[in-house]
């Protein structure tokens, strides 16, 4: 009896010892960025999150690599971070998906977090936010503030993430102003201030008096400020780029998620999953509203925010039709996550090209 107990105790002791060791894991994080940290937008927002995560006692000073091209190039950079001893790696653009999966397969002891993709592995999670929620809210504001009923949208690439944002925004616009139309210009770039500025100017030229955008640079805000239009930012609170024109901005709050993930890895409770958090989890939000927005609009936005958080309202709820009149969501239903993640249609009110 006693003899049998010793190995058992030993085993228990070992298990506790191992898990204690695992739980003491120091985090050495590496970040792969698609733009420069000074872009004031997408990459800037991730970098703010990185700094917030660094405040944790078990997180060592982290490393970032900026302006890494998407595609095969990125594998080298990700590999470089692994070889330099990083054990938690964030790849923050869709185009890093294949490279992340590839490097992860060769380095099972490192944990990878890929932003905005759809491939996971035992040591790779994906993470993203329900940006369509604040997009919808910002649409309510745009629809209320437009006088000419033409709203311009400067958009990067016609991928589901951007299309979802444009649709949610337009649904918000049309919920308060069924006459308004949203005109989309594609730039085919995430970060190119010159191109983004040209696109914004072209929308102002066709009469748009409110602009919104899905880009990494604040060029659209500067264009609106220069021409006396209103503008809705994106990524981070960009009001200092357009003190008069700025209405609000759907913003990312990566710090909340990064802190949580680092803690999970540290505690050994991390597991591979597909994270898609929204307003409720505070991953996405709306920047403080401009003073120019009337009281009743603010109240409506506040009311819808609460409803979304409580789960009583969903921007993509039926009856929902695409702009050709085909029914997408039946009355009484809401769109499934899978359908939202692969969205490839425009709702009524959007003017822009989309290949089938």
């Amino acid at each position, binding site marked *: 009896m006693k003899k049998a107990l010793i190995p058992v105790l030993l085993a228990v002791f070992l298990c506790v010892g191992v898990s204690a060791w695992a739980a003491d894991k120091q985090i050495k994080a590496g970040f792969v960025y698609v733009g420069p940290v000074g872009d004031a937008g997408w990459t800037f927002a991730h970098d703010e999150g990185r700094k917030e995560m660094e405040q944790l006692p078990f997180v060592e000073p982290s490393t970032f690599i900026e302006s890494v091209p*998407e595609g095969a190039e990125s594998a080298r950079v990700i590999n470089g971070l692994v070889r330099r001893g990083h054990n938690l790696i964030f790849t923050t653009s869709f185009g890093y998906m294949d490279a992340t999966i590839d490097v992860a397969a060769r380095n099972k002891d490192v944990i990878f977090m890929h932003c905005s993709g759809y491939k996971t592995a035992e040591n790779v999670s994906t993470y993203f936010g329900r940006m369509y929620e604040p997009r919808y809210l910002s649409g309510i504001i745009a629809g209320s503030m437009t006088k000419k009923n033409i709203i311009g949208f400067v958009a990067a690439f016609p991928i589901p993430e951007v299309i979802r944002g444009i649709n949610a925004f337009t649904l918000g616009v049309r919920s308060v102003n069924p006459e308004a139309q949203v005109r989309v210009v594609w730039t085919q770039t995430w970060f190119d201030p010159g191109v983004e500025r040209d696109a914004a100017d072209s929308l102002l030229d066709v009469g748009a008096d409110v602009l919104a955008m899905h880009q990494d640079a604040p060029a659209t805000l500067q264009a609106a400020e220069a021409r006396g239009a209103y503008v809705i930012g994106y990524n981070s609170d960009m009001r200092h780029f357009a003190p008069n024109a700025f209405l609000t901005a759907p913003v990312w709050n990566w710090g909340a998620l990064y802190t949580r993930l680092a803690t999970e890895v540290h505690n050994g409770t991390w597991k591979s999953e597909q994270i898609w958090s929204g307003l409720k989890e505070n991953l996405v939000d709306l920047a403080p509203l401009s003073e120019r927005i009337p009281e009743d609009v603010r109240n409506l936005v506040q009311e819808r925010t609460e409803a979304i958080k409580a789960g009583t309202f969903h921007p993509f709820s039926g009856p929902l039709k695409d702009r050709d009149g085909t029914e997408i969501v039946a009355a009484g239903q809401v769109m499934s996550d899978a359908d939202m993640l692969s969205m490839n249609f425009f709702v009524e009110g959007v003017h822009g090209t989309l290949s089938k």
Partner: protein
Amino acid sequence: MKLVTERRDISSPLLRFFAPVASIAVALVCAGFLLLATGVNPLEAYREILYESLGSVYGLSETLVKATPLIFAGLGVSLAFRMQIWNIGAEGQIYMGAMGATWVALFSGLTNHWLLMAGMFAAAMICGGVWAGVAGFLRARWEVNEVIVTLLMNYIAILLVDFLVYGPWRDPQGFNFPLTAQFADAARFANYFDTRLHSGFFLALLCALLLYLFMERTIWGYQIRVIGSNPQAARYAGMRTGKTIFAVLFISGAIAGVAGFSEVAGLQYRLSHGISPGYGYTAIIVAWLARRSAVGVIIVSLLMGVLLVGGDSLQMLWQLPIAFIYAFQGLILFCLLAADFFIVYRLKLVRGTRHG
């Protein structure tokens, strides 16, 4: 006293060798002051660049991977330069080559590895060749400036690939993301030494050898060189310049097209937006610095590989901004081009004002 430039009577082989070496040294000294200003020990930084890019099997393999598309595209561009034809369109030809190879890989129905490889290779050559051949035809027939035609056709090629990956060639399982399906294993190059080094690199070396033999040992190569240096004499000697212009641009584009094949079959395994992050434009610098020789193209491409791969380590170890990496690379290229100038010209101090 006045500083004037004067053409050298002959430029010695010694000078030809030492000028580039000296120019790189000058660039390193200049960049060294920049590094000191940011608080980084330049010697340590340079050691790190060399170690990162050449100091391990992994680093070396990444440098070779990086050099591969540059060798192909550089060879293509340099062949045209040999005849004083300015092919600025290697970027578009890479995209077309990648497109042709992808079509064979995904839609030809072939399953045999060697048949697939041969088919993809041929399709890439034809697509790249036809793309450049258009400029060749216009130039030969109506003296249309090939610089403009090849340059503008880059944008058409990139947009054509965008159209395919956003539309008809989109992966049905890809959640509407702009990517084609991944290639089957039979449509991929072999990898070596458990790194990303793939058969494309050896194909590039073979291509350089063939091009060298073609230019130096065949009648055609001789004709190209004669037409390049003196078109009138060539015409007088009965050479058919029009046909040769077309043929040279076709072959030039075909070789650049193989770079696209090599990228999709060796690294990316699919077609996507931004398949080449500007290799076609870098190839122009490569061909220029290589003075249009095949061996030179290989050497300069490897140098570029060292700069790009080594640049990563500056970011990773010292968190230098990407702008510094660009400035550093630019400084080295600038000094190399300056050396090119001093091989042909020399500076001379002249007393008094020069009448002339």
